[in-house]
């Protein structure tokens, strides 16, 4: 009986249904909690990029009071009727650059809600093994980098995965994305490393558009360079229109 074809087919069918129901129930039951985590993670990354998130910060509270988020298109115009949570940066990444919707996060001063102190922009790209992403925070001149955060899905531990560490990310602080002639040049991770930590910062001091490399992670570094320059190019029109409005003030 246990070997008959009918028994096998019916058994498999019942098993599938039982497992399916259990899994669907788990997924639906846990979904709100998971969404909450993803949302909190996004807010935390944005605040980390501008250095507002330290241990024990009320992420949601600070985000609500100091962040003004909106969406722009590749021409730099605000897209009305869209909120940043409607835009999935990973999905936009698959579209041609000119059609992408681009979220912008304005960070307002903690004391004066009228004053914009920083801009935070999302980044998305491809490293050595899988996608990489992050945020870049700019000063209000839309030229100087205030900070960056990067994350990755599958870069090599100890090599490419270092992009997610503070050691690499602090190398970007204070670098410029525009040349003195006003041309967008981004910031490039070079090849070869000068010893890490302080020595790496020292080696590229005074060089506005270059930072020290990551030994053993050249391809991940290239991925980060492309990601940063691609996204900065897309935001270029937005920067230009806002820089002129700032300088005319």
């Amino acid at each position, binding site marked *: 009986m*246990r*070997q008959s074809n009918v*028994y*096998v087919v019916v*058994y*498999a069918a019942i*098993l*599938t249904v039982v*497992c399916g129901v*259990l*899994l669907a129930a*788990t*997924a639906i039951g*846990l979904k709100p*909690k*998971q969404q909450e*985590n*993803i949302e909190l*993670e996004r807010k935390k990354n944005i605040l980390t990029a501008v250095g507002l998130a330290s241990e024990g910060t009320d992420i949601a509270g600070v985000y609500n009071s100091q962040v003004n988020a909106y969406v722009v298109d590749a021409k730099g115009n605000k897209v009305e009727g869209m909120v940043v949570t409607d835009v999935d940066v990973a999905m936009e990444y698959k579209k041609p650059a000119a059609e992408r919707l681009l979220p912008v996060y304005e960070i307002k001063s903690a004391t004066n809600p009228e004053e914009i102190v920083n801009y935070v922009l999302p980044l998305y790209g491809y490293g050595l093994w899988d996608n990489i992403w992050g945020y870049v925070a700019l000063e209000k001149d839309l030229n100087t980098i205030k900070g960056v955060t990067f994350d990755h*899905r*599958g870069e*090599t*531990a*100890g*090599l490419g995965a270092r992009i997610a560490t503070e050691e690499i990310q602090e190398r970007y602080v204070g670098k410029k994305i525009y040349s003195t002639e006003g041309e967008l040049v981004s910031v490039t991770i070079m090849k070869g490393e000068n010893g890490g930590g302080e020595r790496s910062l020292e080696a590229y001091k005074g060089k506005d558009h270059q930072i020290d490399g990551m030994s*053993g992670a050249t391809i991940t570094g290239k991925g980060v360079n492309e990601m940063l320059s691609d996204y900065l190019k897309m935001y270029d029109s937005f920067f230009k229109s806002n820089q002129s409005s700032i300088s005319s003030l």
Partner: protein
Amino acid sequence: MSTEVAESKAAAVVVKESEPLFSKKNRKLLQNPLDGDNPITVQVLGICSALAVTVQVKPAIVMSLGVIFVTAFSSLFISLIRNTIPSRIRIIVQLSIVAMWVIIVDQVLKAYAYDVSKQLSTYVGLIITNCIVMGRLEAFAMGNKPWPSFLDGIGNGLGYGVILVIVAFFRELFGSGSVMGFKIFEAVGINYQGNGLMMLPAGACVIIGLIIWAQRARNGYSEEH
């Protein structure tokens, strides 16, 4: 050691009814995988994830808990339905039960331990390919009652976890100079430059090799097969 293995095999075949929950045989099911019958160092199963998730202690502990949970409950379930499973599709049945528990673990981690689940990323999903889980289902749960199978699952999960945590301890200590994120070397005032080899899977390979060596030296291993 050979007598121990023989005993555990005997225990696996004849677990009689109406014995106390933690009889000597049942205790053996829990204890043997920790040392003499360890899934990683003796049976050499589950090496893949032992190399991958042992850079730091914390993810290693969570990964171990995940594996213990999956082996225990998969064994329990398979043992409960072992007399109804058609032998021609038994591997597929085992696989679906294991897969179900793995996905549940993954979902729960995403909801309640988001940071850790990010660190473990794909490796939670890969518990399904961990040879320990299906190995125990096929070798033990298919032929034994639910309770001993459950214990066998926990025992093997623990045996895996113990090695994982030991390896992770040394890798984190020598690789980044910390344990559970606490900077040990800095705390005692030594300027320690992290060893890059320990951050790579190759470092885990070396440590597992050393553990196997130490264990065999202690237990008196000899090639007899």
